[in-house]
């Protein structure tokens, strides 16, 4: 089967290169959706910007740092609180938002003084906080504000503070993926190796690409504690700024989200010789495999098997209860990128769910290699999907449930199709054994929720006044 040109894309035929329907006996050499490419004019992309990828996804998760956004106030609000990544220090990073609130006069006359003033003001207001991320945004990058020079001067004036600058304006890449990249490389270039961690175990690792969505990192941490493994740094779920400066001392890098954070794992391997283990943290079978591999690497296989047995005994019966009721459910996954390949087989193997369509906002071709190798035949694989394409795909595959973000989720709900938040979760955590039961429960509640059918009933009946859309 060739790449697919949907009917709604007849005026933007370039979209054919981004949509693939897997046919029998085809592999990743047959077809691969073009991805991490500029959005085609005429398509209403649902991507975020590069700044968002740096701040909302990675930097903003760090629990003990001020997140100073050098730009208009909207850049701050729109990357705050839209993901739920709690922390064990009272959710400091979610309670506050910081911005230099750039106005027209600052754009005209330059914003460096305003940035310096804002940094001092933030540290003065929160004297117990000594760490900060500073982000450029589109306007402050365009006017050439030198944020590194400002940060350096502040650090000279305040020797007890440390500031990391992220120069990643929204326009600097084709999607939020660029922001992941810039922050990864910036962090290892400027911060890793600048602080020696306290080693408390003969077994040390970094856990990379997990952002503590509704407690993912904290749940997985209980596993590593039981294995006696010290996690030097979580990149960046529930993480301290200074822990992340000590990543160079780990013996192993375990990577979950390879798309957002694979760069730093690769660099840690290249510069410090730390091997990289990629695992899937969602799903019973996958989680057990990850725990086994980590246990083998450190020579604690017995503890790993004990952990797996305990978790299976505790959670597998609950998972199976949902599986009985979810077998045959058709699922669509419209998320960022990696969850396509993390989830497509785990929901199939552990829950009997068939994934019939997947769309990635910012995945690269590597992500599509992974998902097409794992995914089903007859399933659509879409890069940078737009709203009209989603409507058409829904008609083609008729999913029973769609895992996607809040904004697309609202559209899905209006179509009376069950939706589960695939980014920030409905009721997580979703990682680990316990977490996958949560995912199964949320899917079950969504699919079997009677309210959707009731909501689809129009009480006006024949008296309904029909309004024609402008295009009709």
């Amino acid at each position: 089967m060739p790449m697919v040109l949907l009917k709604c894309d007849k005026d933007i035929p370039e979209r054919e290169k981004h949509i693939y329907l897997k046919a029998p006996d085809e592999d990743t050499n047959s077809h691969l959706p073009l991805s991490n490419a500029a959005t085609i004019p005429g398509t209403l992309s649902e991507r975020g910007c590069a700044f968002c990828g740096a701040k909302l996804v990675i930097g903003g998760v760090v629990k003990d740092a001020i997140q100073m956004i050098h730009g208009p106030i909207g850049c701050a609000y729109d990357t705050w609180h839209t993901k739920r990544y709690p922390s064990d220090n009272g959710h400091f990073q979610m309670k506050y938002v910081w911005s230099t609130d750039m106005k027209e006069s600052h754009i005209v006359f330059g914003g460096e003084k305003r940035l310096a003033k804002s940094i001092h003001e933030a540290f003065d207001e929160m004297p117990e906080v000594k760490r900060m991320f500073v982000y450029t945004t589109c306007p402050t990058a365009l006017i050439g504000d030198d944020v590194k020079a400002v940060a350096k001067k502040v650090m000279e004036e305040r020797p007890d503070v440390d500031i990391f600058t992220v120069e990643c304006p929204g326009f600097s890449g084709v999607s939020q993926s660029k922001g992941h990249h810039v922050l990864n490389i910036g962090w290892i270039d400027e911060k890793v190796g600048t602080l020696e961690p306290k080693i408390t175990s003969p077994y040390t690792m970094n856990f990379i690409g997990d952002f503590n969505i509704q407690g993912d990192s904290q749940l997985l941490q209980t596993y590593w504690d039981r294995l006696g493994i010290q996690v030097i740094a979580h990149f960046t779920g529930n993480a301290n700024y200074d822990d992340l400066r000590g990543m160079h001392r780990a013996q192993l890098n375990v990577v979950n989200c390879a798309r957002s954070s694979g760069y730093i794992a690769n660099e840690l391997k290249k510069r410090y010789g730390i091997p990289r283990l990629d695992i899937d943290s969602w799903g019973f079978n996958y989680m057990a495999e990850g725990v086994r591999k980590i246990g083998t690497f450190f020579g604690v296989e017995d503890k790993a098997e004990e952990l797996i047995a305990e978790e299976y005994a505790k959670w597998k019966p609950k998972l199976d209860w949902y599986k009985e009721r979810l077998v045959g459910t058709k699922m669509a996954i419209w998320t960022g990128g990696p969850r396509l390949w993390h989830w497509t087989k785990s929901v199939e193997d552990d829950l009997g769910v068939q994934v019939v369509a997947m769309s990635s906002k910012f995945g690269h071709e590597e992500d599509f290699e992974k998902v097409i190798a794992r995914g089903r035949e007859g399933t659509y694989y879409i890069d940078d999907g737009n709203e009209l394409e989603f409507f058409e795909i829904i008609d083609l595959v008729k999913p029973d449930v769609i895992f996607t973000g809040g904004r697309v989720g609202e559209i899905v709900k209006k179509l009376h199709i069950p939706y589960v938040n695939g980014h920030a979760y409905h009721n997580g955590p979703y990682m680990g054994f316990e977490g996958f039961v949560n995912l199964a429960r949320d899917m079950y509640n969504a699919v079997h929720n009677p309210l959707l059918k009731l909501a689809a009933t129009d009480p006006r009946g024949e008296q309904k006044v029909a309004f024609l859309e402008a295009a009709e």
Partner: protein
Amino acid sequence: MTSKLDNLFDYVQERCLWQFASRTWDRTENIEGVLKQVGVLLKKQQSTAETPAERLHLADAKVLVNDCRQRYDWVNAIPPEEVDLVLDGLKDRLLDVTITRSKNRELNHSLY
């Protein structure tokens, strides 16, 4: 032998993230490193994994071998002299699919 190779190739494609590392050199290192350890395990030899990279490849290999022992009966009975033949074929096919004929345009970028 072809069916045995097909079994292992299908398993690796479906399960193993190490084949899809970011760059050509990472994929090559992983495929060669893991399959070397798979050979050691299938031939029931003593593994000499010492470096961190070798220990990681051994960890990946153990899961592969244990899974395949459960999926395919022939894995439990394969004679040592056939192991290298099958694994050489598997290595060639994986390198061909994930590197040589890969459509991934980022594979040979000099930077991460």
